[in-house]
């Protein structure tokens, strides 16, 4: 087990100056440094955010006018489906993991993530999954078009784009699970002495709970899509009504994953907002313990509400009433959080730099999304509004103005620490206000459209919906273009921003910002493991070349697997999506995951 002399878990922080770092692209492919990997995650998610955003703009362009103008209805459905999958699995979730990679070790005084090599793998799985997902656009039949929820019977009957999507979901799921195990282990085992659980920054707490949710539900999703796959190709009938299965069963399994998933996407944002608000209100977070318990209860309740996504499938009234009340119950811990954020600002010495603007924008618009969620929790109302634009408005308020705004705030907040350079405050403010205004222009009218009965996921609509659709489309393009300000602001800060002070925000008091105290705690942690350090020191001669070799091996294996994987895609495509072709691809991916697991269990 300890055949590799250089131990990352405990040793990485000891010598930040690895004498012979590989340079250029190899640095990023072979890196095991939590900060590098955090950066990779964040850039990856930003690229996916732009990809998914372009799809959204194509959707909005088509919906600018009633009738069919720009895209075929089939392609419209594919855009809808892949937009959802890309934004959820490609943008929001990896961005959250990126924040965790950067911040969790710094905030708890750990030298690095617990399994540094596994960390590298959980990131590098993602580009493969993304290419697999996006390459489904060019296979016969096009990409998956059953909606991001992949409901059968449609998902059992469509072309091989669905198979690629299923495999992409498998890989992204494996990546999330590995990332989560890493985060949990880091938080539970590698805190600096004196940092008890109830002293951890709230961002760490929210990520700990998120990671537990992830390892509980991602395998269930993997199971659900595996059942889809066997229904499609191997003659099982889990969801095939003709063979005795039931499509509604898929909805139950999917939403058992899907509802905790929405909290997976929002809890890290809660953590970021809980970090930013005290810093700019110059007051400690109000009700820390209640925040922790509220997060925990949201997580537990999230397992008991899944069927509120499917009130219209024909479940008995008793079931509807149960799921309705439990759903409404979630509003209580969520309201505790909103109350605490507002109470933190109460009588604080507030200033409104960009991170704070995003955090306050988050509170406003997340609360709007929360209220529309409460409206949708009512069974009689939901039956009317099910699958209308009201639902689209609801979840974009909590996901875009919720999760995404918190992430923007987090980037501006920590960028001075990450890059050592300050961003341009004027650009940041422009980014916030344009995003804020255009977001509301895009999504607020969707409430009206939904209440008036416009169904979602349809490329055409009745003419009375035209006005608000035009407004929404204009807003969407404005929102999309605003994100270029963000890209420019970040690039400008990294390249030519003025050097940031060691403590860029005077009000912040978490370890990561309160340098050099963070370094101090890290040293205490390492001293405690002196024995290990000694062991490490005696092996000083060997590690560098061995390490280099190991990293090169990682890169080689990645490369060869990429070849096998895309050979598989091409073989599957060439055979027209036949069972044999899909089988080849399936084996390639299983091999991919097995290698990933085996390589990491050793350490």
């Amino acid at each position, binding site marked *: *087990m*300890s055949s590799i002399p250089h*131990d990352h*878990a*405990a040793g990485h922080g000891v010598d930040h100056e690895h004498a012979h770092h590989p340079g250029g692209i190899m640095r990023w492919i072979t890196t095991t440094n939590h900060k590098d990997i955090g950066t990779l995650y964040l850039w990856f998610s930003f690229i996916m955010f732009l990809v998914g955003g372009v799809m959204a703009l194509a959707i909005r362009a088509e919906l600018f006018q009633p009738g069919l103008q720009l895209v075929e209805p089939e392609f419209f459905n594919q855009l809808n489906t892949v937009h959802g999958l890309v934004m959820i699995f490609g943008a929001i979730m990896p961005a959250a993991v990126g924040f965790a990679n950067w911040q969790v070790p710094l905030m708890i005084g750990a030298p690095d993530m*617990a*399994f540094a090599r596994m960390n590298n793998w959980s990131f590098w799985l993602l580009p493969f999954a993304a290419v697999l997902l996006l390459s489904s656009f060019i296979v016969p039949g096009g990409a998956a078009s059953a909606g991001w929820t992949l409901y059968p019977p449609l998902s059992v009957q469509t072309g091989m784009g669905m198979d690629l999507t299923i495999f992409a979901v498998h890989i992204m799921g494996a990546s999330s*699970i590995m990332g*989560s*195990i890493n985060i*949990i*282990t880091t938080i*539970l*085992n*590698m*805190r600096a*002495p*004196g*940092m*008890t*659980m109830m002293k951890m920054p709230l961002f760490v707490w929210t990520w700990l709970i998120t990671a537990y949710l992830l*390892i*509980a*539900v*991602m*395998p*269930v*999703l*993997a*199971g*659900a899509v595996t*059942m889809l796959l066997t229904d499609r190709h191997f*003659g099982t*009938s*889990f969801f*095939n*009504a*003709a*063979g*005795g299965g*039931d499509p509604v*069963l898929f909805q*139950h*399994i999917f939403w*058992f*994953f899907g509802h905790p998933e929405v909290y997976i996407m929002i809890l890290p944002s809660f953590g970021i907002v809980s970090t930013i608000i005290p810093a700019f209100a110059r007051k400690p977070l109000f009700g820390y313990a209640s925040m922790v318990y509220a997060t925990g209860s949201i997580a537990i309740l999230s397992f008991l509400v899944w069927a509120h996504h499917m009130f219209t499938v*024909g*479940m*008995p009234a008793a079931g509807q009433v149960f799921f309705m009340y439990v759903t409404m119950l979630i509003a209580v811990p969520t309201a505790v959080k909103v109350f605490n954020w507002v109470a933190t600002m109460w009588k604080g010495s507030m200033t409104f730099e960009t991170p704070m603007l995003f955090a306050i924008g988050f509170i406003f618009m997340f609360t709007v999304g929360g209220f529309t969620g409460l409206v949708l929790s009512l069974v009689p109302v939901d039956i009317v509004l099910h699958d209308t634009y009201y639902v689209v408005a609801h979840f974009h308020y909590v996901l875009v103005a919720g999760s995404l705004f918190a992430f923007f705030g987090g980037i501006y907040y920590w960028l001075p620490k990450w890059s050592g350079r300050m961003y341009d405050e004027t650009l940041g403010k422009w980014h916030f206000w344009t995003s804020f205004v255009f977001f509301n222009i895009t999504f607020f009218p969707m409430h009206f459209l939904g209440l008036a009965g416009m169904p979602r996921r349809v490329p055409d609509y009745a003419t009375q919906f035209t006005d608000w659709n035009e407004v929404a489309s204009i807003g969407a393009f404005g929102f999309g273009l605003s994100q270029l300000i963000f890209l420019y602001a970040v690039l400008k800060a990294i390249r030519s921003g003025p050097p940031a002070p060691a403590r860029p925000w005077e009000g912040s008091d978490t370890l990561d910002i309160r340098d050099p105290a963070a370094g101090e705690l890290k040293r205490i942690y390492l001293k405690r*493991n002196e*024995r*290990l350090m000694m062991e490490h020191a005696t092996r000083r001669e060997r590690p560098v070349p061995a390490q280099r070799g190991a990293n090169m091996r990682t890169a080689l294996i990645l490369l060869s697997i990429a070849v096998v994987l895309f050979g598989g895609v091409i073989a599957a495509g060439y055979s027209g999506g036949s069972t044999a072709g899909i089988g080849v691809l399936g084996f390639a991916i299983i091999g991919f995951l097995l290698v990933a697991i085996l390589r990491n*269990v050793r350490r």
Partner: protein
Amino acid sequence: MSDARPDDPRKANRTLLLKLGVVVIVMFGFGFLLVPFYDQICKLTGLRDIDNPDRLENSQIDRARTVRLEFDANLRKLPWTFRPLAAVVSVHPGEMAQVVYEVENRTERPMTGQAIPSYGPQSAAEYFKKLDCFCFAKQSFGPHERRQMPVVFVVDPKLPRDINTISLSYTFFEVEGN
């Protein structure tokens, strides 16, 4: 969760990795466990009893009302013919009636299919009592076999006043691997 940490963090990390790995595997299994669990729930609550004959408690015929019944037949990727002999029938609620569907397998090989009923309006479903139906079982056909199959039914007199027309649509799906 206390602050006490074992001496060797690598060992502790690996132990936790294994424990969490077990959670992952158990949850993967749990996803599949939801399948029999769901079946049991449906059996207990009678939610999915679509392939059992219905029972009718009240056989009083309501001659004052006439309900128009429309029959529809669809095939899902099956090279068969499938049609009702009478597309529209009028019945009194409470009156027993029968319609006949004709199916022909137009291929050279034996095939098995299952018909799934669907109602319009949806709310009429619970008042349409099927006493016998070819949709209760899988139907096998030899090459070029043609067969007529009945649906025996009663429209429940409790049918709401505002429903005057019920459409019953069957779709035949192929059951593979038979």
